[in-house]
């Protein structure tokens, strides 16, 4: 049974669309597995997701203050030590992963589709549409990301949702450029012309013929940028413009630990390590995904 199922998953002549899709997924996954570092990245990202979804059942409250326990070093009772208000740093990091995952997912879901649309429309229609859309993109691209995000948060007010909006607004332009470049290279190809000759509508050509070809590079870029998103979110938190106390946001925790960094190093170091590992995981995964998509296109 086991071998037949494995064969069913890797057959070169699938019987149905669903099976063909599964076979494709299996083979892509194997390419990913062949890359040790990508596997490590995938493991880190999955661990982060599990931590965000289920971690809060295993640790205490992130906001319970026990002033008698302030600034305790890592021990059997408090694995990562306690902070200046006697809160367990491990509990705060675990709860903080929810905020991190939420920011990363929301930003990716806003930025990917939006950038893709802008780029495809600009590239496909060309002319004035292209000029206008790309000049707008250039304006956003010309401003440093964190500075622009700071300006948005200053205007919108602090908080996680506003941080998400600020990061999204500042990070879509590279996706628009990427999608535009891909669209330009395929909009005059024979298969797009063929679709036109078959009577396909513009919308159909954009979504069925052009989007799938842009998607690979956009997804890879998104995965790479997730680490950047984590860092920007942490940076906003550090500057006091993202999450607000007492929320256990990692950047905010580093900022709070700054005063004790010489004597009580763990207060700033533990959330810093969490930020480092999470962004490393997304980076490694992005590397592996790029290989997977390359294998398919070659």
């Amino acid at each position, binding site marked *: 049974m086991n071998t037949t199922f494995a064969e069913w998953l890797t057959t*070169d*002549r*699938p*019987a149905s*669309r669903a099976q*063909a899709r599964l*076979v494709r997924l299996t083979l892509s996954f194997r390419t990913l597995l062949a890359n040790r570092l990508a596997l490590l990245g995938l493991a880190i990202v999955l661990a982060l997701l599990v931590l965000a979804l289920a971690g809060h059942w295993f640790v205490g409250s992130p906001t319970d203050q026990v002033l008698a326990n302030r600034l305790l070093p890592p021990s059997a009772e408090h694995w990562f030590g306690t902070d200046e208000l006697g809160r367990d740093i491990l509990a705060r990091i675990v709860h903080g992963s929810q905020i991190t995952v939420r920011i990363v997912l929301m930003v990716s879901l806003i930025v990917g589709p939006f950038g893709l649309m802008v780029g495809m429309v600009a590239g496909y229609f060309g002319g004035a549409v292209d000029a206008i859309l790309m000049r707008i993109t250039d304006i956003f691209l010309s401003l440093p990301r964190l500075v622009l995000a700071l300006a948005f948060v200053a205007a919108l007010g602090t908080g996680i949702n506003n941080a998400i909006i600020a990061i999204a607004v500042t990070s879509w332009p590279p996706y628009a450029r990427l999608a535009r470049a891909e669209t330009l290279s395929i909009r005059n*190809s*024979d*298969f797009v*012309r*063929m*679709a036109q*000759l*078959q*009577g*396909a*509508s513009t919308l*159909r050509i954009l979504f*069925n*013929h052009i989007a*799938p*070809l842009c998607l690979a590079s956009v997804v890879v870029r998104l995965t790479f940028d997730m680490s950047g998103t984590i860092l920007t979110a942490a940076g906003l938190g550090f500057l006091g413009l993202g999450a607000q106390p007492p929320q256990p946001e990692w950047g905010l925790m580093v900022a709070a630990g700054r005063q004790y960094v010489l004597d009580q190093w763990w207060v700033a170091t533990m959330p810093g390590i969490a930020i480092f590992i999470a962004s490393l995981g997304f980076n490694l995964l992005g590397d592996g995904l790029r290989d997977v998509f390359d294998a*398919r*296109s*070659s």
Partner: protein
Amino acid sequence: MIEIESVSVDFHTKLRTVRALKDVSLSVPQGTVFGLVGESGSGKTTLLRAMMGLTAVSSGGVKIAGEAVRQNPPLAFRRRVQMVMQDCYASLNPAHTVDQIIGEPLAIHRFDNPEKRILQALKDVGLGPEHRFRFPHQLSGGQRQRVAIARCLAIEPQVMLLDEPTSALDVSIQAEIVNLVMRLQQQKGLTLFIISHDLPLVTHMCDRLAIMRKGMVREVITSQDLIERKVEDDYTKVLLSASL
């Protein structure tokens, strides 16, 4: 089926006007195979583009199945008139499986039972169900051109325009594709319009053919006459002697 009446096409540049087609008139009855032969730059492709409504004609007009061709023709016209392109590597979307490629025109024209039609179209062009979920890069050149033909046939067109359908393939595969096209033409009673610079190929495939040069039709003759060398035009004679 296809009526081309004194079609002229001009291309305007800033400095001058180039007349790509001069007063071309051709007529192709239903269910016959017509060939268009000419050297590069003779206006073959321009005529094809005009027939598909991709290029505006300056004067004259093309009628297919009684309907005048215009730019951006209605969907029903697209269904009746399909085209196979020269480069089978570029005319298939690399991100789509064969299944999606053949299913696409079926979805555009809202055919029922796409599942059955895709399998039938594959069978018609001599491909098996094992090819259905492959990507174009997993197919050979001949198989790709078969997929391109299956894509056209799936929506049951009346007229098929073939732009150098075999020139990107090597010789042994060329014969396969030619035989496939001829078999399908007879089975389905298609009207074929084939463009090529390969005189023997066109003579083999077509009932009648036209020789083009410099945007003009020099001669329209039957293949039989060509084989028996009953040609009148000097250029046709040159072409004929060059192809032997």
